[in-house]
């Protein structure tokens, strides 16, 4: 059924340029006579008339096209394939040599004799026989010992470990605790005391939803937890809070953002010409929805890699599945690259890197140019995966005037996804069409003038192209009834699988032996790593299922470790994106296996998995310091306490907005970048226009433009989305402090907080409680009193009314609370 659906799936062609084209392998074997014809009639012509610009030895390959090997000839150039074996009429090459089309005439110095042109027709019509074999770069037989490689811990299937029995201790509550305590005891460490209810409530709110609790929530839950009549009742009370938070839509926004770090999600291409991606937000919302719906993680994997290939029961499900493949489309792209083949190779490389690191914490992309230096991944494994992604079309859609490399977007209109914008009248639609036509005409006229030798300033020419594209976009975002169309980024299968050759040193000009499509051998049963030859399509769905299988030794471990990291601040394997030899080994290998198996037992439910861990005693430890433990384990690798951590930039901003009363929790529709429009940042899009976008929505909804991240997020270590980044840095810089002290955003929140509390009986005390989720201590009250005195004294030189003084003093106090370390540190 889904195949049928695919054919009706319209593909918007407005940004179409063929950078990515499927090459169907012609099946016709060339006969000896045919090859002789090539040698006698065709090859000499190619050598003397074409190689100068279209060969390996050419100074600069024109149009990305090479004609000096069979594979290069079939691969075509920047404009796509140049020959359709069997049909000269359909072949660009023939069109060029026949000199019929004024825009495409080759060789440029003059038409070939008619007899030679006729030879070309004959040759292509007979199937373009071509005996030339590329000088296969000799592939050095891999020295990797896969059998030995399979013995590495991460490549063996998780084994259900025995739960450690702890005699004479009442401490453990869950199996997680038993593993942790066993290791602590071995290391002569003792767990510190449990966190108090207030800290626990704050921790649960921040970790599960990314937002602080309101003082009311703190009071309610603290009294429920502390008021519990038994240990069991206490645990039940905490469990109820966990359930409530996991059910909150705020959960998906927070944990979805975690995944977006891994998915290197952004709304611009980054790279050499940073272009806005106006439709990336659909993937963002898909991720948030998936977490909120607690989509099983194996299903989540398959949808992101191959949602377009899944069966479906409704249009809406189909559309959502396609949006999920935005995962493969949202990476960094070098859209200013001139050579289509290199762009495509880099695109595939980026997809391999993102896929293998995100789901398998394995750096397969290291094997692009040679066998992996550290892990048992031969170079052929890379090209086996490359074959799958090369057989896939990636749709990201950019304006042709702005990017040398563009592909169409996917059109999902009418399938039940939210629409952006309102319906317009037919008259308005006609206006847009007229504008488009005018701009197109102007651009064509400009081009004609230039062709005729008239001096046209470059700016006029560029403007005409941009106008053409902008008006085209403005028109084509509506269907013929004036309804807004729904576009998405994502992937589709090529019409035919693309043959893939190993590239010596990863260079597109140095093809070697053919590599059949398949998976990473060392984590596949011997002999089962190749795609069956019978499969139709790219093999992406098979790849997705192979990754999402409980038999894959890495997948469950990797996501279990990622979740653990977000709960504890660091993973059991600290290098969350690298489980290879150069990563770090797990601190608790058996616990990691236990968790991986539990996750699968929970049917890959992330919520159930989180619930199990946060209800452990280990997770509920306090963060208090202990000198003797610290002396033995200063990094808290063995979890004798909860590690304090700094909140993420998103949490800091969201918490400030919440505390000030300014936070808008409703999800905005679409992206705020709509106001900016499409184009290249620094050229047709102005950076200040992105920076000035203001919103009181949660940070996950702010524009995520590579190199132009919202200032606060950038300063507080939000990743720039250039690659998979499962673990953020925590840096401290003076620019952060300048921002906190002096930026309008923080001041607005301080003023908001002051306004919120000013009419309270004890405004300073209430503000403190709102900011920190706890009342001020006696000493803090003394600091506060001293502050008021000193502020009043220092303000004497400024002539302020008593009211103004009071207001400003309270504002400055609130501002200090937002600046203080406790506000952004979670115990």
């Amino acid at each position, binding site marked *: 059924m889904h195949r049928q659906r695919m054919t009706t799936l319209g593909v918007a062609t407005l940004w179409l340029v063929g950078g990515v084209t499927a090459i169907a392998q012609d099946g016709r074997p060339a006969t000896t006579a045919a090859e002789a014809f090539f040698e006698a009639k065709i090859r000499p012509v190619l050598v003397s008339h074409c190689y100068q610009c279209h060969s390996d030895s050419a*100074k600069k390959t024109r149009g990305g096209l090479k004609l000096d090997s069979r594979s290069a000839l079939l691969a075509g150039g920047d404009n796509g394939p140049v020959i359709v074996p069997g049909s000269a009429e359909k072949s660009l090459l023939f069109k060029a040599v026949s000199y019929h089309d004024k825009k495409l005439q080759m060789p440029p110095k003059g038409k070939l004799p008619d007899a030679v042109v006729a030879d070309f027709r004959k040759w292509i019509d007979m199937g373009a026989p071509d005996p030339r074999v590329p000088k296969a770069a000799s592939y050095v037989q891999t020295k990797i010992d896969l059998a030995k490689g399979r013995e590495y811990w991460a490549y063996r299937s998780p084994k259900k470990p025995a739960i450690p029995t702890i005699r004479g201790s009442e401490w453990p509550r869950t199996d997680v605790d038993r593993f942790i305590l066993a290791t602590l005891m071995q290391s002569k460490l003792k767990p510190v005391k449990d966190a108090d209810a207030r800290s626990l409530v704050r921790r649960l709110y921040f970790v599960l939803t990314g937002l602080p609790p309101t003082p009311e929530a703190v009071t309610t839950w603290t009294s429920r937890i502390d008021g519990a009549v038994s240990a069991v009742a206490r645990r039940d009370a905490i469990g109820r809070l966990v359930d409530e938070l996991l059910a909150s839509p705020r959960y998906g926004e927070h944990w979805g953002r975690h995944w977006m770090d891994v998915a290197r999600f952004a709304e611009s291409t980054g*790279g*050499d010409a*940073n272009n806005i991606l106006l439709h990336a937000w659909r993937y963002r919302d898909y991720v948030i929805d998936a977490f909120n719906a607690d989509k099983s993680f194996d299903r989540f994997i398959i949808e992101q890699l191959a949602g377009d290939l899944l069966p479906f029961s409704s249009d809406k499900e189909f559309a959502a599945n396609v949006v999920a493949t935005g995962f493969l489309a949202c990476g*960094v792209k*070098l859209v*200013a*690259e001139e050579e289509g083949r290199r762009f495509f190779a880099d695109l595939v490389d980026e997809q391999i890197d993102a896929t293998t690191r995100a789901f398998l914490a394995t*750096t397969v992309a290291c094997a692009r140019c040679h066998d992996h*230096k550290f892990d048992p991944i031969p170079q052929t494994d890379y090209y086996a995966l490359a074959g799958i992604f090369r057989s896939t079309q990636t749709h990201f859609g950019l304006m042709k005037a702005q990017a040398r490399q563009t592909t169409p977007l996917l059109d999902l209109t009418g399938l039940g996804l939210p629409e952006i914008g309102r319906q317009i009248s037919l008259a308005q639609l006609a206006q847009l069409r007229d504008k488009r036509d005018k701009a197109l005409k102007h651009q064509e006229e400009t081009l004609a003038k230039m062709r005729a030798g008239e001096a046209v300033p470059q700016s006029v020419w560029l403007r005409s192209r941009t106008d053409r594209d902008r008006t085209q976009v403005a028109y084509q975002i509506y269907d013929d009834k004036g309804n807004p169309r729904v576009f998405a980024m994502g992937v589709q299968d090529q019409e035919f699988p693309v043959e893939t050759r190993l590239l010596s040193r990863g260079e597109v000009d140095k093809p070697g032996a053919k590599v059949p499509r398949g998976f990473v051998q060392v984590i596949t049963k011997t002999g089962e790593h190749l795609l069956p030859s019978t499969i139709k399509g790219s093999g992406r769905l098979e790849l997705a299922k192979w990754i999402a299988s409980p038999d894959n030794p890495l997948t469950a471990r990797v996501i279990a470790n990622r979740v653990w990291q977000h709960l504890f601040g660091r993973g059991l394997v600290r290098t969350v994106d690298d489980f290879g*030899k*150069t*990563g770090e080994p797990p601190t608790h290998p058996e616990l990691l296996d236990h968790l991986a198996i539990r996750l699968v037992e929970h049917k890959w439910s992330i919520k159930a998995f989180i619930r199990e861990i946060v209800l452990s005693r280990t997770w509920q430890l306090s963060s*208090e*310091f202990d*000198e003797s433990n*610290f002396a033995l*384990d*200063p*990094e808290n690798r063995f979890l004798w306490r909860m590690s*304090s951590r700094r909140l993420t930039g998103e949490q800091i901003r969201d918490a400030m907005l919440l505390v000030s009363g300014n936070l808008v929790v409703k999800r905005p529709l679409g992206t705020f970048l709509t106001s900016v429009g499409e184009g*290249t*940042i*620094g050229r047709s899009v102005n*950076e*200040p226009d992105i920076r000035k976008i203001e919103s009181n929505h949660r940070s996950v909804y702010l524009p995520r433009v590579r*190199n132009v991240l919202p*200032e606060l997020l950038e300063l507080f*270590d939000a990743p*720039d989305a*250039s*690659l998979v980044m499962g673990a953020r*840095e*925590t*840096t*401290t*810089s*003076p*620019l*952060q*402090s*300048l*921002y906190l*002290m*002096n930026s309008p955003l923080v001041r607005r929140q301080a003023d908001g907080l002051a306004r919120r509390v000013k009419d309270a009986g004890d405004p300073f005390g209430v503000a403190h409680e709102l900011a920190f989720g706890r009342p001020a*201590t006696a000493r803090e009250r003394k*600091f506060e009193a001293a*502050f008021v005195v*000193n*502020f009043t004294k*220092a*303000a004497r030189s400024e002539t302020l009314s008593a009211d103004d003084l009071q207001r400003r003093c309270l504002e*400055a*106090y609130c*501002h200090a609370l937002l*600046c203080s*370390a*406790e506000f952004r*540190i979670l*115990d």
Partner: protein
Amino acid sequence: MSKSNAGLMCRRDTLKTLSAGFGYLAFAGLATLQAQPRSPLAARAPHFLPRAKRVIFLCMHGGPSHLDTFDYKPALRRDNGRSSRYAGSALCSSPWTFRPRGQSGLWISDLYPHLAQHADELCLLRGMHCDNPSHSQAFVQMHTGNFQFVRPSLGAWALYGLGTESDSLPGFISINPPTGVGGAQNFGSAFLPAVYQGTRFNIADSSQRSRPVDIARRGPANPFGLNHVRNEHLSPSLQRVQLDLVQQLNREVLDRTGQAPLVEGAIESFELAFRMQEAVPRVMDLSTESRETLALYGIGSELTDGFGRQCLLARRFAEAGVRFIELGHGTWDQHNNLREAMARNAGNTDKPIAGLIADLKRRGMLQDTLILWGGEFGRTPHSPDGDGRDHNHTGYAMWMAGGGVKGGFSYGATDEHGYEAVENKMHIHDWHATILHLLGLDHERLTFRHASREMRLTDVSGTVARDILA
């Protein structure tokens, strides 16, 4: 952590736990913190004795023509108008006269009358080449060594290797970098900890930055070059009262928890920020400079004011202990209008650069300041229309001065017309290796573990050009 482990603690760990602490330990009075490593920004000893302590990179983006500036080609004059190796365009000799300059007799064109007076300080690199003729890719490669992946910038590597000597300014400053061509990547830290990333200063430039189109694209220049330097709301004394409260609250957390590197880092960073509020406006305020000095840099003349300000600021940052300073000027992309645009570009920068060299020299700073000049590539010897040149990455020129390089020296050469580097070729990797070497850093030992590899600025390449070392 055992003692032996402590020694293995990598810089990344240091950063994560410590942040920008500047000896706050004594202040906190916590015995348990004795093992804390130093600030990741504290000045560090290089691998070996350095020839330069700091770098000023005069970055000319767009690809300045070597054939009209520093690479004299008599054969190009001889063959002017003949067909080039590219059909359809003819060889084009430089419209400017070259002359031997100084004691050394380096050939420099009349585009640089002021700079030419310092010929004996210059070390011309005339055999440069890189891997790509597109602006963005070549520009990113010039800064990071790699145009394919996001990699740390040269300045970030220098800061990572050496730390900084300023406690009130960032250690890596990039003034007016171009917004396109890779943007923030060019002063980014990529996988290096973010403290090593360059801080972008936006400096008003009367010759360029006041163009409405630039203001639209980048935003108006800030008189302090940085955002949020001034508190518009509280006087310094009121702000100090506020900051005292912040720090009291922070110290309470420290007292309560016993050990909290994050809090310590916050305390230090607020103090540095507070100092920057005062230091940044001071260093940006050129009114304390003498009229003679301002004139030396060409400040006050329309043609040279913009870049003159940048150059003078570079000296002031250098004096303040900043490790790596990059200045931006462009665009030098003269496909057409070569005569006029080259004259304007050179005119913008000639006097300011000469002023910078002279000023550093008289202050005794030239010997340990490495000055770099150049762009992402050069231009072709042929011209599409007789008044412009196309991109040429296979052979072009850059230069160095000061900090341990031979003065009045020319290294490397292109072919007779200037198409390709043919002698003592210097790839961008070699350029990077040489710069690090001058700073006392071995480019093969300056590594950072990322994506399972010990990453280097020079990847697996790079040869130090020992011939140019003084």
